[in-house]
């Protein structure tokens, strides 16, 4: 019996403890698949070229930041239109710490995360009092306050000229190529996603979900709304700060212009497309958002070649088409797949699990 249950998937709910109910990997096979995925990714620098590694690195640092937003929006039911500003704050903070104090980049990345947490909790204070649309506008203000701060605080960000960020180095090793920096990002992705998945099955994680589902009931049950709302902002900003710091040291240069409201909306787009409240969906949504502009480029190049290479409106309009494609994707997902890619993935899996008796 023991051997059967280890190798096969039980047909029904046979869990006998809370621990089993909240496990991250429901079967040994799913755990093996996740480990295999990470191992495959670790081999990626040997298998694919710089172009694809660059995309994977982007998915990595945006994915970390998006997961933070998903904890805030998807799990705690708050809203933030200022996520890009926290992302930027992390980038500037890490570069500033490294440039002024000489602390190695290896340590400034988590330190920048903590600094961003502090800033995020300050801007999260309004969440204690207001919710919904009003909170959206309050966080919208934080976006503009921080953007203006980036453009003016020359001591911290270099002002409108931006700031240089040193490359990641550790014990004399400099990890500045796509091939090597990929491992830095991969390491952080694994750590942050495991933390995120575990957070949601902890006492605090359940409190977040309770606040989201019915804040009055949660309060009646003894959950301190103010504490958990602000904590959620802090955790979300921590993720944004780590993602931003990884972005800054990858690019080598941080410009105050890189963190506009558009990026905040894109973060929201990532978690909507991926699936609100889903850790795995966050990664899917981020991958979707990073790859969509690249696919648009490929597609328009393809059409251009098919048409004999003489469609100037196509090359001219490419920049606009990329933006439009993102907008269109968000609208289409909201209409046809409001639960996101994670939901679609579960359906596909269920279909094959039950195949051919899928009724």
């Amino acid at each position: 019996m023991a051997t059967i249950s280890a190798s096969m998937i039980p047909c029904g709910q046979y869990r006998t403890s809370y621990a089993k109910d909240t496990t991250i990997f429901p079967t040994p096979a799913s755990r093996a698949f996740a480990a295999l995925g990470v191992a495959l990714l670790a081999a990626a620098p040997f298998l694919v070229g710089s172009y694809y590694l660059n995309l994977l690195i982007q998915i990595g640092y945006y994915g970390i930041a998006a997961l933070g937003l998903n904890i805030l929006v998807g799990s705690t039911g708050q809203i933030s239109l200022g996520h890009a500003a926290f992302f930027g704050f992390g980038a500037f903070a890490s570069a500033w710490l490294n440039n002024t104090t000489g602390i190695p980049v290896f340590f400034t990345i988590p330190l920048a995360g903590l600094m961003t947490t502090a800033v995020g909790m300050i801007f999260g204070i309004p969440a204690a009092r207001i919710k919904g649309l009003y909170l959206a506008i309050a966080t919208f203000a934080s976006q503009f306050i921080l953007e203006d701060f980036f453009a003016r605080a020359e001591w911290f960000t270099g002002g409108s000229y931006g700031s240089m960020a040193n490359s990641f180095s550790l014990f004399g090793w400099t990890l500045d190529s796509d091939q090597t920096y990929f491992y830095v990002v991969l390491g952080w992705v694994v750590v942050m996603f495991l933390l995120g998945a575990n957070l949601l099955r902890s006492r605090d994680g359940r409190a977040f979900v309770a606040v989201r589902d019915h804040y009055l009931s949660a309060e009646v049950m003894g959950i301190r709304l103010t504490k958990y709302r602000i904590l959620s902002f802090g955790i979300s900003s921590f993720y944004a700060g780590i993602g931003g710091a990884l972005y800054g040291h990858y690019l080598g240069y941080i410009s105050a212009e890189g963190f506009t409201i558009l990026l905040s909306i894109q973060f929201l787009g990532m978690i909507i497309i991926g699936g609100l409240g889903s850790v795995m969906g966050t990664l899917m949504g981020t991958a979707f958002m990073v790859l969509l502009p690249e696919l648009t480029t490929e597609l328009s190049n393809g059409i251009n070649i098919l048409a004999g290479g003489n469609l100037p409106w196509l090359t001219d309009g490419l920049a606009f088409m990329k933006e439009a494609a993102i907008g269109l994707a968000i609208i289409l997902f909201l209409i046809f797949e409001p639960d996101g890619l994670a939901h679609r993935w579960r359906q596909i899996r269920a279909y094959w699990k039950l195949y051919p008796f899928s009724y």
Partner: protein
Amino acid sequence: MKRTLVSAVAVTALLATAPAFSQDSIFVGHIADYSGATSDVGRPYGQGVADALKWLNQNGGIDGTAIEFETVDYSYEVPRAISTYKRWTSQKNPVALQGWGTGDTEALVTFVAKDEIPYISASYSGHLTDPVGKSPRTKTPAPYNFFYGPSYSDGCRGLVQWAADDWEKKGGDGAPKWVHLGDNHPYPNAPKEACAAYAEELGFEVLNPILYSLKPGDFKAQCLTLKQSGANYAYLANTGGSTISLLKSCDTVGVDVQFVANVWGMDENALNATGKAGDGVAWVVGAATWNDDVPGMELVREISKISDPSGEEYRVGHYMRGICSVFFMRDAMKVAKGMDGGITGPNIKAGFETFENHAPADLEGVCLPHTWTAENHRGTTEVLVYRANVADDGSFEMEHVFSADLPRRDDWLGW
């Protein structure tokens, strides 16, 4: 051991994905703004660069070496320019780059110096002119940066000279007042301090700068501030698009100020748009204009047919500067081809630094002659000032009113 293994595999992976290079072709990256905040002037300039590169390829390239090039529209967003640069350096092995804005060019200074890739920018920021960091004002030396034309600071200094001259002719009383208008952005900020210092030297009273966005909008508030400040000369540091809005707003408010504009701040398109509001604006012009009767314009018109086979399109001044920028690069590449190692980044840089009062021979009369040395990248100190005379029906002519030949002062290097 492990490290060498990793890098060996990394190099192999890199080589496997890089496109096949034939010996007789080189890659040149072209970063342009066709859809961002400065696209009004970015389009004609970028078209000039692209047309000139295509024309060179149709006519034998660099003495037989073809130029592969890719144009990337980065929408005036610095991070996009940087990621494009990183993509090119990891995949395409560029020998030179044709760039655009000040923000991205200054951000890339240390990158191109490390990778030894000459960067010919459309940013004429004075900060790019000190290749060794001799000047105490230089924050970062820019050994691999070149640009065509007078720097923004020099252009503004030329305008200050013209303004001093103009003030005297008008018989103005006391010290004239000078004010800088522009966005809080690396490009408009580049000449701000250098030019203000020179204006003070020439006896101007310099007022507090006024901020107006690079994105066109309603600037009546700024115009009212300008009116109240009592300024006599207002320097417009943005590009044409926002300057049109500003001139129109100021016309409505009734500001009586002599406007002077940066090289990207005014052109024929802008004058068509402003109409009478643009009357009297003086600005820096960096090359021959479309209707000029000089021998080199024949070649420019031929190059223009690459993107406009009918040959009827009127090209604004920026188009000619784009062509000049490419032709100076071509001449430097020709010099490099004769050196050990052929057309490589360091050789192209060395090629540029051999030029003394040099202008591309086949563009006679179009491009200003330039001199670059290993210690001084201020290519030219000649500033041509033009003024717009707009008639009541909106037709206009551009009058060449002043030429400044600025001294090569040591304290102006890199500033």
